[in-house]
């Protein structure tokens, strides 16, 4: 009876929500005067950035990106904190087992290519699709592959935490430099360059490279922590 009531209530709620959402028209260009046109225009005319998504993520809403980077940092630290005790109490036994030689030699071949692709994606974040988050995630998959293929492949936790911290410090530092030079936090204080060149968009490219390093280090650390959780 109780279950039936719950299902009934959920069904009524779901019906009304569906009705409302089907009329909402998400993605339909209905409003002419939203913020979007301004973004599209200023990205090219003022920031000289080819990828509008990047200019919105890193410049117009760069403060959000700083927040999201912090969220990732917090989540990874929390994960490490929760799994911390178990790692120190028990012996040094890994949940992994050795892979076949096909996987091992294949991953040796693929690893540099994956890293190169990741670096390419975040360096060209302001020119082509992709950016710091995507590039960082690609690099982390490379490390995941190596960790799966080689039982004793290890990543230095100290190095990861250096990269993570320095990337974060540079991000906030660039923001503060803009604050001192141009007047507002995260403002672009470098010359914008020529559209479609690698060195264009001022601080946008630099920030995205920092984000790439940070995300790569954090996700790699996360994978390493989870895979080497001893039970």
């Amino acid at each position: 009876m109780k279950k039936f009531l719950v299902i009934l209530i959920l069904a009524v709620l779901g019906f009304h929500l569906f009705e409302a959402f089907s009329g909402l028209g998400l993605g339909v260009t209905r409003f002419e005067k939203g913020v979007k046109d301004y973004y599209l225009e200023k990205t090219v005319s003022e920031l000289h950035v080819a990828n509008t998504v990047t200019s919105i993520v890193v410049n117009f809403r760069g403060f959000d990106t700083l927040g999201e980077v912090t969220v990732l940092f917090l989540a990874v630290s929390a994960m490490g904190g929760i799994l911390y005790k178990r790692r120190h109490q028990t012996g040094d036994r890994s949940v992994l087992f050795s892979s076949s030689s096909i996987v091992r030699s294949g991953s040796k071949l693929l690893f540099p290519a994956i890293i190169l692709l990741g670096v390419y994606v975040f360096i060209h974040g302001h020119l082509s699709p992709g950016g710091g988050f995507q590039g960082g995630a690609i690099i982390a998959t490379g490390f995941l592959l190596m960790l799966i293929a080689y039982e004793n492949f290890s990543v230095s936790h100290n190095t990861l935490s250096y990269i993570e911290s320095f990337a974060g410090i540079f991000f906030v530092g660039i923001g503060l430099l803009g604050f001192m030079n141009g007047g507002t936090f995260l403002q672009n204080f470098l010359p914008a360059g020529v559209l479609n060149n690698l060195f264009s968009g001022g601080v946008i490219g630099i920030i995205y490279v920092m984000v790439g390093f940070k995300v790569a280090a954090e996700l790699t650390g996360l994978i390493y922590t989870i895979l080497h959780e001893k039970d």
Partner: protein
Amino acid sequence: MVGSPVLLIAIPLLAAFVIPLIGMIWKELVRIIPGLVLAYMLILSATLLYYVSYNGTIVETIAGWQAPWGINLDFSPLTGFLATLMSALGFLVWLFSYRFKRNVDFEPAKKYFIFLMLLIAGAIGIVITGDIFNQFVFIEITGISAYALTAFYTGRNSAEASFKYLMMGAMASSFLLVAIAILYSQLGTLNMADIASKMHTMNPTYKIIALIFFITGIGIEAEIFPLNGWAPDAYTEAPGPVGAAFAGIVVKAGVYAIIRMIFTLFDVPGAYDFLIAIGLITLIVAETSALRQEKLKRMLAYSSIGQMGLVIVAFGIGTHEGVFAALFLMLNHAVIKPLLFFSGSSLVFNSKKKQIAEMNGLGKRMPLMAAFFSLGAFAIVGLPPFAGFWSKLSVLSAAANEGLLLIIVLILIVSVIEIVYYFRVVNRIFFQEYSKEQSVVPHRPRINAMVAMFVLAIAILIIGFYPDAVTGILHNAAKDLMNTDQYINNVLQLGQSLTR
């Protein structure tokens, strides 16, 4: 000027990234730096609040883009008051927990201080931001720090509490995102002032759906009634000072977000009555649950939820007096509840079960802690010479001005319940015999904890004997919240509005 509002966010984030590096040089710095940062935030926000109360709201743009396009921070008498309150409390929580896990375990201690600092920075961000998606990001920062701090002792119970909180928080985040998506799809902007100025063009059905998603999402942080299942567990399982930070800082940020939505953004008819109804239910359910609790921290948690219910009722009255009373309640709760948490967790420090029954006769063994706890208890139930009296009085008079007799009667009845359960504890502390088998082994808190509690106790007495010290600031803040047009103008006068 010592700086601008954005430094309230940028400096703690910078420090959070610096701490892991600097901890490799000298471990003590991991404790010292958060304190310096919080002290700087306190000085900065207090100076800015002083500046703002004479010169009007500071609206700061970020990344050089004007209000509707870029993100802006809004440091007004209201948000400045809350930011100052939060950074002051944050500093005291840091002071109280300075020796936390010192010389015991370095790695957890480092994480504790990072999480604590970002919890406070996130809560301040929720308050001072003027952009709805940016607020969502700060809710995430606060939330994740809070889950991590809840799970801090990595035991079975704390894992359960944290998991519960995490699940509810994750649901809340997705609800918030849906609400933001609805607003953006209808109005094409994420800036709060711009949304407020265009809200009248939105279809009422979507408006109500978005508001419901918002309130469900933020209600989890604000501990309103059906959504607060995580709170008692989280308060009980988290380390003692963290409970104080939850009650004093995180919940305040949640309540602020709800109030900003209802007062400024959405002009939905009946929203104020909804606030009164939900607040009363929260108040009554929480206080009657508090009456039945055996564990001290659970009792304090329920009492905290109840107080937030009362705050929401006071906001729901909707007049200047009501808002003033609600802000006064928030201030008093932020001063009194941490004192109760600090002294309470010192009283039951050596106990495994943290039961109220174990507190028999502690008044003779730990007179100062017992005195602090009873001061807090007297103040929060609203006995005359202490701080809580004035805020309850102003709630009652605000309700009386509007002729809401039912509210007055209910608040008085609930106050009696409150007196019963707080005095039950005070009675055990002072008038029961100490017995070696059943009572807690006394634990002497360190000097830094003593100083933190002493500051709070002094604040309670000052507000109690001389309420005029704070009422000016509160009146300014209340005026600021009520004046929606001015909020919109402040933000949008910088750039030209999109649609006017």
